[in-house]
């Protein structure tokens, strides 16, 4: 089965600083999802990556999938208190056929941004 390891497990930064969260897979990633979770608000979809070398950005958040498709990174530029929360990566284990979107998740990275 596929396993995802996120690093760091927690991160405390000062407002305005850049930061990176990594998600490393034990197997090839066929689809990598990034979500943000805030208490009481469920998971908010950020981005989905499928192709090796793919990079997507939304506002100040950029996600990349490496060429070998075994690691993804999430980069936040000029962090703000509104970026605080838990960031989760989820992998679609599809290999050949379809996995029906059954995601395997990393354990999450807790981000705290001090004003």
């Amino acid at each position, binding site marked *: 089965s596929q396993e995802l390891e996120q690093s760091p497990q927690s991160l405390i930064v000062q407002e305005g600083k850049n930061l990176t969260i990594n998600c490393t897979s034990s197997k090839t990633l066929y689809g990598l999802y990034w979500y943000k979770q805030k208490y009481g*608000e*469920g998971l908010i979809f950020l981005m989905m990556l499928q192709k090796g070398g793919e990079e997507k950005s939304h506002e100040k958040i950029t996600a990349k999938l490496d060429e070998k498709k075994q690691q993804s990174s999430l980069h936040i530029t000029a962090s703000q208190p509104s970026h605080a929360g838990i960031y*989760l990566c989820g992998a679609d284990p*599809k290999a050949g056929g379809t996995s*029906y979107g*059954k*995601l395997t998740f990393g354990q*999450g990275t807790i981000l705290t941004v001090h004003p």
Partner: protein
Amino acid sequence: NAGVTQTPKFRILKIGQSMTLQCTQDMNHNYMYWYRQDPGMGLKLIYYSVGAGITDKGEVPNGYNVSRSTTEDFPLRLELAAPSQTSVYFCASSYQGSGNTIYFGEGSWLTVV
């Protein structure tokens, strides 16, 4: 936009009681999922459905049952609640599964005492 709606948001159960977590989506999605999230852990798949009348087990199905009589609804039934089922439960949906955005509800916090 309602999206994926879960009820109840919070519930306390006694050991041995049963209950149903409700999930409904208004996006006409074929695929629906139930996950649980334990403290400090990622989400684990309990059950999923690829359409009305079709359900299948995920990684941690023991102690749960599901049904999918309509496209919109995917209730999760807990039979004989145990303390190990204390968790946050998330329902999710997607139009066609793999390669599509998967939308999550806001979660249901369940405590079994």
